[in-house]
C-alpha cells in the first residue's frame, strides 16, 4: 500500500515538472487555429498594403495619354484639346478622405498652380466609386469653394467610357499628369501626399519630380 502511494507521489511530481517545462507550456498556450488564421490574414493584408500602399506608378511611363472625352456644362472636351498645356487629370470620389485632403491642399497652392499654367481637370468617378456621395460641385464648394472660380480648374463628371479608359480598377482617387506633348508621365492616387511631384511637374521640373 505504502509503495503504491510512493509511486503515485512520484508520478504527480513528474507530471508537475513536465508541466513547468517550456515545450509543454508552449503547447498549452498554442494559439487556436482561427486566431492563427486571422493573424496570417492580417500579416498578408499588411504586406499587400505595404506593397500596394499607393497608386503611384512611374514604370512604363511616359506613354501617350489615351484618347477620351468628357462633358462639362454641356460642352464636350477631348484630352487632345489640352495639348500644348500641362494637364492634371484627376478622378475622385466625393466620399473619399484623401480626396478631401487633396482639394484643400491644392486650394492652398492654387495661385502657384495658376501662375505655372497647369490645367486641372477634376472629374467625379463614374458611379462615384460605387458609393453615394455629394455632387462634385457641392463637394468642391464644401471643401475648397474658391477652386470653382479659378480659371485653370475645370470640374465635372467622368463618363463610363472615360472611367473604363483611365480608371478601370475604380480607385477612389487617381490623377494623371500629362505634358505639353500629350505624354502621360506620372500617376498617383493621393495628390495631398505627392504635392511636390505635382508642383515640380507644374513648374516644368517634371524630371526632378
Amino acid at each position, binding site marked *: 500500500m505504502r509503495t503504491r502511494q510512493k509511486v503515485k*507521489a512520484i508520478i504527480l511530481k513528474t507530471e*508537475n515538472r513536465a508541466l513547468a517545462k517550456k515545450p509543454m507550456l508552449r503547447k498549452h498556450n498554442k494559439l487556436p487555429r482561427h486566431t492563427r488564421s*486571422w493573424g496570417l490574414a*492580417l500579416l498578408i493584408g499588411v504586406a499587400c*498594403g505595404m506593397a500596394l*500602399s*499607393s497608386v503611384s506608378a512611374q514604370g512604363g511611363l511616359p506613354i501617350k495619354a489615351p484618347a477620351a472625352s468628357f462633358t462639362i456644362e454641356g460642352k464636350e472636351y477631348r484630352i487632345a484639346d489640352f495639348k500644348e498645356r500641362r494637364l492634371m487629370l484627376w478622378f475622385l470620389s466625393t466620399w473619399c*478622405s484623401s480626396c478631401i485632403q487633396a482639394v484643400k491642399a491644392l486650394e492652398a497652392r492654387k495661385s502657384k498652380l495658376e501662375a505655372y499654367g497647369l490645367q486641372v481637370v477634376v472629374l467625379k468617378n463614374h458611379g462615384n466609386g460605387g458609393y453615394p456621395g455629394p455632387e462634385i460641385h457641392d463637394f468642391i464648394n464644401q471643401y475648397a469653394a474658391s477652386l470653382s472660380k479659378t480659371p485653370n480648374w475645370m470640374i465635372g463628371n467622368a463618363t463610363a467610357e472615360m472611367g473604363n479608359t483611365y480608371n478601370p480598377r475604380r480607385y477612389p482617387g487617381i490623377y494623371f499628369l500629362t505634358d505639353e506633348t500629350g505624354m502621360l508621365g506620372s500617376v498617383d*492616387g493621393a495628390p495631398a*501626399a505627392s504635392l511636390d511631384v505635382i508642383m515640380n511637374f507644374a513648374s516644368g521640373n517634371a524630371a526632378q519630380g
Partner: protein
Amino acid sequence: MEICLQALKTVFRSRRYQALAAASFALFLMLYLMTLPSAFTGGRVGFIALPFLTMELAVWSVVMAALISIITTFVVFLVRQGMAVSKASTVGGVIGGVVGPVLCCSPVLPVTLSFIAGVYPALIGPSAWALQGFIATHQTELFTTATLLLVVAFWQNARRIEAAPNCAVLPQADN
C-alpha cells in the same frame, strides 16, 4: 471594474511589467500614429502620414495604443503563469483599428476586387465596390468598435489574472 483595477495592481507591481507596458505603448503608439492618417494619404503608411494627423486621430491612437500595451502585458503575465489567454477580441480590435484606415482610399481593395472580378466575375457585384466608401464614411464607428473589442480583451484577461491563483498548477505536497 474592480477586477480590472485589481489585475492592474497585480501585474504592475513588478517593474519588469511596467517597463514592458511602457515599451509596448511607445511601439503601438508609433504604429497607430503612422497608420490611422493613411486614409488621407491614399494608403501610404509611415512618416509620410504624420503631417496628416488630426487631434481626433491622435486621441484614438493614444487610447488604442494604451489598451493594447496593457493587454500585451497581461498576456505576457498570464503566459508566464501558465494560464490560457484571450486573444480573439484583441486580434479583432487590432484589425479593426489598423486595417480600416489602410483599406480606405488605398489601392488594396480595388486591386483585390479587380483580381477576383477577373477570375470569378459572378462573385463581384457593384455592391462590392461600395465597401471602400462604407469604410471611409464610417471611420469613427470602426474605431469605436475596435476600441470596444480591446476593452473586452482587457476585461477578459483581467478576469483570468484574478482567477490565476485558483487555477495555477500548485506543487503537490509529498505524502
